[in-house]
């Protein structure tokens, strides 16, 4: 009897202690009639770092973009708007950029100056910082040399002509550079804070920002709490008072929290709910300028023969794939550069170049395959589609596997590898067919076109075409945007006609969004959500 009593008391005591020790977070109430300006957003992962010079991932970039502001900022229609820089000019040869800054303040009252940008950009390039994204600034003269330890920081071509004027000199013309200054790696940091407390990015009490929101708390693996930054130069446009960023890894759990009224916005939608929620019942589908494709290893038989590659590319039903398998209104791709990338006319690259470089044509595919020596798939070597261990990719691979078997008589296997092993295999060309996806680093076709130059670091197909390389070089050297774009259009035609990669679809970005949430900018690349103009209705 004594033992039992003691045991029971012990259990009760622990429960009581747990209640006292906890943070006292109870079930949150959903947004009420008086609409408190609070949005609860699930980032779906713990950020690896909140130091702009170290951040590489999209989740990190998303949090940072809501706390900082670079020289420019993207608006709701992917247009570049003035940020900390109120105006800028580019020299005729496209090499010298002069930015005139406005009188903005840091959240601790310090003024934001051109020197802050010089300090921060040199910090990104400093070999001791060992930033993975230092190469984002390699456009600058002297930058790569400094980062390789072969140049001095004084030789990097960025300087503060005065308190509010920043001058940058590039190695070669690069129209994408302006948009890049909106990117987290190029955000300024407060030099005074960085010198006094080098570990300022690890805790929120020393964290100083110049953007729409400032941080209050970072509970690892739980939540980051942001409040409106009253010292932000454009604080007048910010309607939200509080932004709570949840860090819940499990998407299904996040969905349950959304159902329970604990969350308002989540970037990922559970695949099994997608079809049900699509028609406006809580899911909004945003554009995503990324392409989903399969690589062929052109150094291995039978993929050294372009006829085989074209045959395989022409014999799958992309509409059926996006309708039945991926189910998020993706767009079948018959070209490589995704929708959402502007060209020299300001219109969409795809609008001017079209999305019909090849067609799904079974008869033609069969003919090509027979011509290549594998009539009806007879004698086709046993090959495999390599993918990483993600349920969605495996489903697509199985669907494609079946389509090839049914349509061409070609049997392929599906090999699943863990993410890093898969990356390694892709890099070392240890595959026959490999699934891949690519998103833009900046809004310009070059970020897709320059993938497939000979020996390109991200080529990963073994494909090499001198004409293609020449066109890419021509585009990179051209100061005239029309010449540049035309060269890239030609290059894309060559890419598709030789088909070292088989485009499947252009991504879309479905998000779980409560109806009362308005004004969130969901860009087609780089970051997941910008809450500067968001509000609750």
């Amino acid at each position, binding site marked *: *009897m*004594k*033992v039992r009593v003691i*045991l*029971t008391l*012990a*259990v009760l005591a*622990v*429960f*009581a202690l*747990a*209640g006292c020790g*906890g*943070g*006292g*977070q*109870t*079930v949150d109430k959903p947004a009420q009639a008086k609409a408190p300006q609070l949005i609860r957003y699930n980032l779906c992962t*713990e950020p*690896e*770092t909140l*130091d702009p010079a*170290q951040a590489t991932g999209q989740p990190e970039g998303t949090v940072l973009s809501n706390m900082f502001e670079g020289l420019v900022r993207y608006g709701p229609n992917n247009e570049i708007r003035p940020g900390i820089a109120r105006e800028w000019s580019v020299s005729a040869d496209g090499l010298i950029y002069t930015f005139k800054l406005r009188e903005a303040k840091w959240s601790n009252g310090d003024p934001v100056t051109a020197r802050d940008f010089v300090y921060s950009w040199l910090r990104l390039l400093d*070999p*001791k*910082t*060992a*930033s*993975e*994204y*230092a*190469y984002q600034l390699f456009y600058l003269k002297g930058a*790569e040399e400094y*980062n*390789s*330890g072969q140049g001095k920081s004084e030789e990097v071509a960025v300087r503060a002509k005065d308190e509010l004027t920043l001058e940058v000199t590039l190695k070669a013309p690069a129209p994408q550079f302006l948009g890049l200054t909106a990117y987290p790696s190029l955000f300024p940091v407060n030099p005074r804070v960085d010198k006094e407390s080098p570990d300022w*990015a*690890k805790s929120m009490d020393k964290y100083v920002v110049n953007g729409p929101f400032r941080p209050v708390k970072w*509970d*690892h*693996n*739980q939540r980051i709490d942001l409040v409106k930054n009253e010292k932000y130069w454009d604080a007048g446009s910010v309607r939200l008072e509080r932004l709570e960023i*949840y860090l*819940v*890894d*499990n998407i*299904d*759990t996040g969905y*349950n*929290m959304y*159902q*329970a009224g*604990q969350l308002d916005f989540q970037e990922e939608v559970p695949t099994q709910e997608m079809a049900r929620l699509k028609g406006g019942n809580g899911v909004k589908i945003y554009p995503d300028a990324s392409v989903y494709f399969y690589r062929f290893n052109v150094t291995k038989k039978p993929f050294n023969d372009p006829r085989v590659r074209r045959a395989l590319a022409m014999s799958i039903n992309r509409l059926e794939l996006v309708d039945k398998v991926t189910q998020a209104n993706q767009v079948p791709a018959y070209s490589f550069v995704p929708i959402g990338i502007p060209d020299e006319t300001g219109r969409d690259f795809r609008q001017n170049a079209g999305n019909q470089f090849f067609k799904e044509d079974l008869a033609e595919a069969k003919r090509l395959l027979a011509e290549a020596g594998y009539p009806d798939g007879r004698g086709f070597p046993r090959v495999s589609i390599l993918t990483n261990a993600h349920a969605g990719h495996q489903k697509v691979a199985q669907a494609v596997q079946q389509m090839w078997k049914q349509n061409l008589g070609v049997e392929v296997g599906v090999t699943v590898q863990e993410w*890093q*092993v898969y*990356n*390694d*295999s892709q890099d070392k060309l240890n595959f026959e067919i490999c699934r891949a996806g690519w998103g833009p680093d900046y809004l310009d076709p070059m970020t897709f076109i320059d993938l497939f130059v000979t020996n390109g*670091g*991200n080529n990963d197909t073994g494909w090499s075409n001198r004409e293609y390389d020449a066109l890419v070089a021509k585009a990179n050297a051209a100061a005239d945007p029309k010449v540049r774009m035309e060269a890239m259009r030609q290059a894309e035609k060559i890419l598709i006609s030789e088909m070292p990669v088989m485009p499947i679809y252009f991504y879309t970005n479905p998000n779980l969004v409560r109806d009362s949430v308005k004004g969130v900018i969901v860009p087609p690349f780089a970051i997941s959500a910008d809450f500067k103009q968001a509000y609750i209705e």
Partner: protein
Amino acid sequence: MARFVLRRLVTMALSLWLIITVTFVIMHSVPGGPFSSEKKAPPAVLQNLNARYHLDDPHWKQYLDYLGGLAAGDLGPSFKYDRTVNEIISQCFPVSALLGAVTVLFSLAVGLSLGVVAAWRPNCWPDYAALGLSTIGFSVPSFILSGLLMYLFAFRLNWLPPAMWGGWQHLVMPVLALSALPTAFIARLMRSSLLEVLRQDYIRTARAKGLSPAGILFNHALKNSLLPVVTYLGPLVAGVFTGSFVVETIFAVPGLGRYFVTGVLNRDYTLILGLTIFYAFFLMLMNLLVDLVYLLLDPRIRLAGSGGDRDGLQKAQG
């Protein structure tokens, strides 16, 4: 006893060293690394990264540097997160430990009760019910149980918050999900052990003397049948206190469990090593405590003079 503990500590240190070495070798043999990514970085950037984290040193030097840091209690920086491994463990372990403690207490309370009920009237309906429950307990995987609990209590009934951490309401579902398996085990262990004890002559004597069933149970039977449960408790505490990846991810509990898995996926070498050492040390410590608890439970047990402690203990029991 002091000699026993001392000798045990020495074997612990040797085991830890062996574990560190094997983990180190395996880690570096697996393809990929902490800074492999889909987008290949230019050589200058990779060079700087390797220099900063000493990944360009030969493996034996990295190994010795690590051991050196370890001697000073420094588990190194995480390669993936902007925190040191010490910080990650000190921030996340208390959460997992609290969840673990409540789970163990709950499992003991329910498991022991079920075991006693089953053993008291063997092969009657309470026995079958208890056995049935325990079979379900260790057959249903924790992620299914978690999903069911969340559906029932958070979605349908709205009694509890679906996830996150903070108050006692956030403890209920993770504890229930985590304790299914241990409860089942403890119930079964208790049942078979108690059945064995109840057959003994001294129990028959006690009954003959007229001692009440409750008296027999609490004065004689329980203490003597607890040994197998205590044995199980050692690894159980070590496993549950260091966090369960599945339950913590599903219920968004900020514990240590997830880092075991993400550390490997990210090839975060220092985190992997640090967590392995932490878990190994904790496990060995728990086993040592379990051996010492034996002494309290059964006065017939003598600490073995030479190696093979547990065998020595069993032999002494006769």
